[in-house]
């Protein structure tokens, strides 16, 4: 025992070699630690972002580096009815799907916030649509929306007798648009519900107790306690949801590929179609870049519109 203490005492006298000392020098260590992440992000995120904006002002095609053409690509897009159609559907898709996701997700979160048996199992099951690859569940929806063998049509026509003929889900513009929105809502509910559930669980029960003593109704408790306390989390989740719904690609590409007659193109699918199979990289990049103003606007709107306020944080915090 005494021998080991003696050894430990002698340790500070050993001079560590220069490499160890270099890695213990804080500025170098911070630099070295940040290097892999910063390197990856600068090379594969920041640089492509700038390159994309540059490409949008050139006439690059696959296999030929382009020349600077100024705003020609954007002028062309402004006269292109397909681009306007994609803008309209992207906004419509984002608006309706976000509303649906948040209405249903909030409802589900409120339901899950009650005392329930098998609560953790239930949460695990509910997250499943969010875990499974989007394209694979989109294929399941594609089969559910089949014009001839759709199970929804079968239920409505044969079993319930509500309709006389099968629904043509993906054959014409508006049904196809709403079918895609329904699939997107289905996929988005779990994430919204589980995030909002986390927010609900941070609300102190004493607020509800005080309100109960004051004789509030259930609606008043929701309107004046739950909803305002939930707003900060709602703002973050909504920012994410809007950004990733607006730039959605997988669902539309898997189910309709922009059809019928280009009516369900989102900006992302249109950019892909023009850029990769079409080969017009410059024009595709211009379409992709035209998403940026919408994204910035949506982010600012949902962030500042629903921004956190001090009283929502509870006392002393922030």
């Amino acid at each position: 025992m005494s021998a080991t203490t003696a050894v430990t005492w002698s340790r500070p006298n050993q001079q560590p070699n220069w490499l160890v000392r270099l890695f213990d020098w804080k500025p170098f260590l911070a630099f070295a630690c940040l290097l892999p992440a910063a390197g990856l992000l600068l090379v594969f995120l920041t640089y492509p972002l700038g390159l994309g904006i540059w490409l949008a002002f050139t006439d690059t095609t696959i296999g030929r580096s382009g020349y600077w053409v100024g705003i020609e690509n954007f002028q062309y897009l402004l006269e292109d009815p397909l681009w306007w159609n994609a803008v309209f559907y992207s906004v419509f898709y984002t608006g309706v799907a976000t509303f649906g996701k948040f209405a249903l997700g909030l409802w589900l979160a409120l339901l899950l916030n009650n005392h329930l048996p098998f609560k953790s199992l239930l949460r695990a099951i509910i997250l499943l649509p969010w875990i499974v690859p989007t394209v694979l569940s989109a294929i399941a929806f594609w089969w559910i929306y089949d014009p001839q063998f759709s199970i929804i049509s079968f239920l409505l026509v044969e079993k319930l007798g509500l309709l006389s003929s099968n629904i043509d889900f993906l054959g014409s513009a508006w049904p196809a648009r709403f079918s895609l929105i329904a699939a997107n809502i289905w996929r988005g509910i779990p994430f919204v519900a589980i995030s909002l559930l986390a927010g609900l669980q941070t609300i102190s029960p004493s607020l509800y107790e005080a309100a109960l003593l004051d004789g509030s109704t259930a609606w008043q408790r929701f309107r004046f306690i739950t909803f305002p306390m939930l707003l900060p989390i709602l703002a973050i989740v909504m920012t994410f949801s809007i950004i990733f719904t607006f730039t959605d690609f997988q669902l539309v590409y898997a189910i309709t590929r922009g059809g019928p007659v280009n009516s369900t193109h989102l900006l992302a699918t249109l950019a892909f179609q023009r850029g990769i199979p079409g080969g017009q990289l410059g024009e595709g990049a211009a379409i992709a870049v035209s998403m940026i103003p919408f994204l910035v606007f949506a982010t600012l709107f949902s962030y500042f519109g629903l921004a956190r306020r001090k009283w929502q944080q509870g006392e002393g915090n922030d």
Partner: protein
Amino acid sequence: MTDAAVLPEAAQSNAATAQPETMAWDSKARRMVTLYLPLACFVIILLFPFYWMTVTAFKPNAELFDYKTYNPFWIGSPTLDHIKHLLFNTAYPHWLVTTMTVAICATFLSLFSSTLAAYAIQRLRFKGSQYVGLAIYLAYLVPPSILFIPLATMVYRLGLFDSPLALILTYPTFLVPFCTWLLIGYFKSIPYELEECALIDGATRLQILRQITLPLAVPGLISAGIFSFTLSWNEFIYALAFIQSSENKTVPVAILTELVSGDVYQWGALMAGSLLGSLPVAIFYSFFVDYYVSSLTGAVKE
């Protein structure tokens, strides 16, 4: 404090005793209608596509296209034909291996770099570290749909086109910001005093990271790993844009581009492929669901 806790209970029990017997039954029925019924609807709707996928994958073709004679919601005579076709007549096993390799490599690459970055931002506290944190948060908000065209030209010029390495290198663009964000939150919850003690005892900072911080951060690392794995398994647009030859495709892309051919869709094989492609993620996720949910909700709360 105890008064506050007792008071509402007392108020409730008063209310309960004041009400007649029928009211108790009424509230039970009401709970049924307002709670369990909507919840059951949600669960059924959220799970139905998976059920339908499974049922379709094991149905023989005769049943698949005939709802009149067979009950569409049940399998009359289950068959493994679709799965056999998938495994032996297509390159499906190969696609699975490619996807698995890409997902695992991308996960390790991004876990490694984001652990170091999160440690530097949260623990070394150099000047301007919060701006680096903010920049990484903003990087997460850049969606892949904007980046895939310039990345495609880059990948082509680097000579990585049609190689899984292109995916391994580009997936960290969305994995690293997310993992770093998650791990910063996790490191914050580890008491700083532990590191101070080690510093006083003469440990170097790398020793502290390896022997104190990392072992304590294992749950955070696990959940970041699961997130990265599922996100890279699910990735679609990069894999679609950068990979051309059939054998290098990942499962989601290959099912959509290789199995969908001609006018007659092989629904049985498509559904079997989707089911098999979803299984690894679902199994992986089911082991770690608690980590997953808690870190998801923790990340949102930050």
